[in-house]
């Protein structure tokens, strides 16, 4: 099966009912996408599927073989970070960091849809991403700062 991940065509060997999360992590070594629950409860596994935020743990690979998938690694790297990745780091919107990739991906999806979200809209959009360390206030601040353009222009659309 072929998947289109982070701008590249990737060949994977998995039954169509395998979870996208497992395939990303175990076959493509894209371990930035985390498993916090495996059941759509925590959001740690959030990836973009054609720009929409999806729980990779609940997504079957067979259902997304013709979609464009973007993981946290596809948004940016330490050498060339996405504005949200800079802002989350600069404003301490990460503690243990385990929820962080999912948070950043959800935030990217939100900003792609709504370039200027209100605080209430941010809370609504991010409600599916749990953080047990309690970074919520800092995440809200980071998203607002990126929306204000303080961390550079957002890249065009999701890859």
């Amino acid at each position, binding site marked *: 099966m072929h998947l289109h991940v982070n701008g590249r065509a990737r060949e994977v060997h998995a039954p169509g009912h395998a979870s996208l999360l497992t395939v990303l992590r175990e076959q493509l070594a894209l371990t930035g996408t985390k498993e916090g629950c495996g059941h759509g409860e925590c959001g740690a596994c959030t990836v973009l599927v054609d720009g929409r935020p999806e729980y990779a743990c609940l997504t079957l690979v067979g259902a997304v073989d013709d979609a464009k998938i973007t993981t946290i690694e596809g948004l940016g790297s330490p050498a060339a970070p996405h504005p949200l990745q800079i802002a989350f780091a600069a404003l301490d919107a990460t503690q243990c*960091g385990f929820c962080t990739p999912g948070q950043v991906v959800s935030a990217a999806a939100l900003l792609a849809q709504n370039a200027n979200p209100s605080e209430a809209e941010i809370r609504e959009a991010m409600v599916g991403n749990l953080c047990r360390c309690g970074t919520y206030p800092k995440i809200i601040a980071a998203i607002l700062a990126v929306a204000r353009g303080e961390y550079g222009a957002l890249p065009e659309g999701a890859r």
Partner: protein
Amino acid sequence: MARARKGRRFITTTVEVEGREEVKVVEMPAFDVAPWGDDAALTIVGQRAPRVDALEKTTGRARYTADIARPGMLHAVLVRAHAAAGVATVDASVARAMRGVLDVITADEVAGQLASGGAKLFERTIRYSGQPVAAVCAETLGAARAAAAAVRVSVAPAPFVVTYDASVAPGAPSVKGSGSNLALNSPLVESRGDIAAGLAKAQVTVSLTVRTPCALHSALEPHGAVAEWEGDRLVVWESTQGVFRVRANLAAAFRLPHTHVRVLCDFMGGGFGAKNAAGPHTYAAAFLARRLQLPVRCLVDREGEQLDTGNRPASLQRITLGARRDGRLTAIRCEAEIPLGVMGWEGGPAKIYHELYSCPNVHTTEAFALVNTSAMQAFRAPGHAEGAFGLERAMDLLARKLGMDPVALRVKNFAKKDEEKQRPWSGNGLLRCYEEGARRFGWSERRAALAGGDARAAVARDARVSRGASASLAREAVVDGRRVRRGIGVAAQCWGTGGGPPAYALVRLNADGTATVLTGTQDLGTGARTVFAQVAAEALGMTLAQVRCVIGDTERLPYTGNSWGSMTTPSVAPAVRMAAEDARAQLFEAAAEMLGVAPESLSASAGTIRSSATDQTMTYAAVAKKLGEVCIIGRGSRGPNVPKTGIFSFGAQFAEVEVDVDTGVVRVLRIVAAHDCGRVLNPTLAESQLEGGILQGLGYALFEERVLDASLGLPLNPSLHDYKVPTMVDAPVIEAFCVGGADATANHVGARGLAEPPIIPTAPAIANAVADALGAEPLEIPLTPWRMLGLAPR
């Protein structure tokens, strides 16, 4: 500058961990380090530096235990029994025959092969629901999960107890199999003064009974381990709060010398007290890896995480406070009952009753009962979070009965010293916390407005976003069509945060003039790695970018203890500073030789050494280059704390809530939190810790409870869907800050711990605000809608 210490190298002293004292022989540091007092000119410590590993985390490059993949690695999954008590029979025949399955281990395969903690791996006797009975090992995670689901576990049921009352009832089944269910020398009695006399002297008394729920740590990263044998040496990656403890556990279980076990933990996704030792997943991974001669990864799944990796046990507290009419406490009494689980330790609610307030007569009892539920584990401020709910609710009732401002009542009973142990505090900024917190919250104005009753609702609507103290506040309002009542509350906190020995660090100067800090600690998300780099950079006179801190490796790094008891910073930071001072002194000797000056004339900042004698300068890089491969290693150790001194952190939190009178839903609008932890090494990271503790406290107050079916003995909500932790929508406006400066008595860095304190006062502050809003007394958390609707008005 370093001075060699005279006198004995090893001394016997008392070390405190989470309120418990242990007598230990500790090493005195090789030289004295002058304390960084408030007047120390620090340029890196105390700054808002971003986490040194922040970009790794935000870009998904940080590698956690589950991200470790070894060549040929197999996947193991634990299988659990879902019954409270009985004898398990495991039928793995179907699982063994499934595709990709290499092995299934049960009590039969493991029996007699592991010692110590490992010997518990797979007992046939089931003592709680969620107990692991087998592990399946397969080529892929998917195959292992599928096979685990195909293992049939049947339990021949036996009688069980899951509540305190049932556990201590005459004729109750024994949780251990024989003997009484009362545990840990119950009842534990602690007393000072004469409680009867104190109550007799009281002009006003309040009595109440409160209940707190069993709460689950719920770190977002579940427990997990990757095990690999290199010949007869075992290497384990573990998500843990204590790499050295896991090493000791594994060495004991597999009967190996410590030279043959290496435990690693670079990034870890939260612990909160649940990850302090090796667990069944660790032993299973290592055991399977040895049997199959291949690396094995064993991750606990979310259900297992919620079922069997620890909890804060429930409590019942019967409280009586006595006071004079002016508010001075004459008596504090608490009798607590704690259903502990199948195991646990004395982290009960009593201690804070002895510590927080000045009162001559205090008497507490704690009865711990074993029950057929999974074992407790320390959960962020174990005991104090529960005890604070009881004590601070009681103080609220007392204030009302006395007609006193709850803040004034607390100020009146401020403890000028540690009355439990009759010793001075190293520092105590609680009065400033009350003052500064109340000011920023607008406590007096809000109290007055709420007492007035009918300030305009329109003004109240802004309260949620108002960080200032000026907005008026109506008791009743209509917000977005909902009828709400508003209230405010306060609660205070104390927690022993001194840290102590043993903790060691090395600072190695590299040939390019950079430095590496080596210390075998772990960063749970606290920012330990960052603050230790800051401390080293400061002491070395380098920039933060020139210093890298390496942690989490038992083979290559010096010992530090578990990251528990809010003690990583106060224990390890002084060792790091000392190692850096030692390395700097050595480098200065080399530079002095090169510059032809006395080492005493040298100082350094931002990586440049300067001589005050000749005004010559030389960079660290230049000195290092001239030295070539000369290896300069600084060594630091944590000395003992000053004797007979209470080293505590303090805080006060103020909450503003609105309760929907039709649905009973409680919304927390705002928390103002003022804490004192001595010197703050990095204000941004400190705020993050405070916010995190407050949000966990908010969950404890409003949502979190492990629900048990008492008739079946089964937990009903082992998922993050049914065990609700706060989401972003639940997060209030939080204004959290630290008051107070360096605590040079606590240690030479001046910092006390901060990790656990913020969870302690949040739930009572919220409940006190709800009491204010509703004119009724919530005595049980979580403050669920149905409980709120059932509250009888005062």
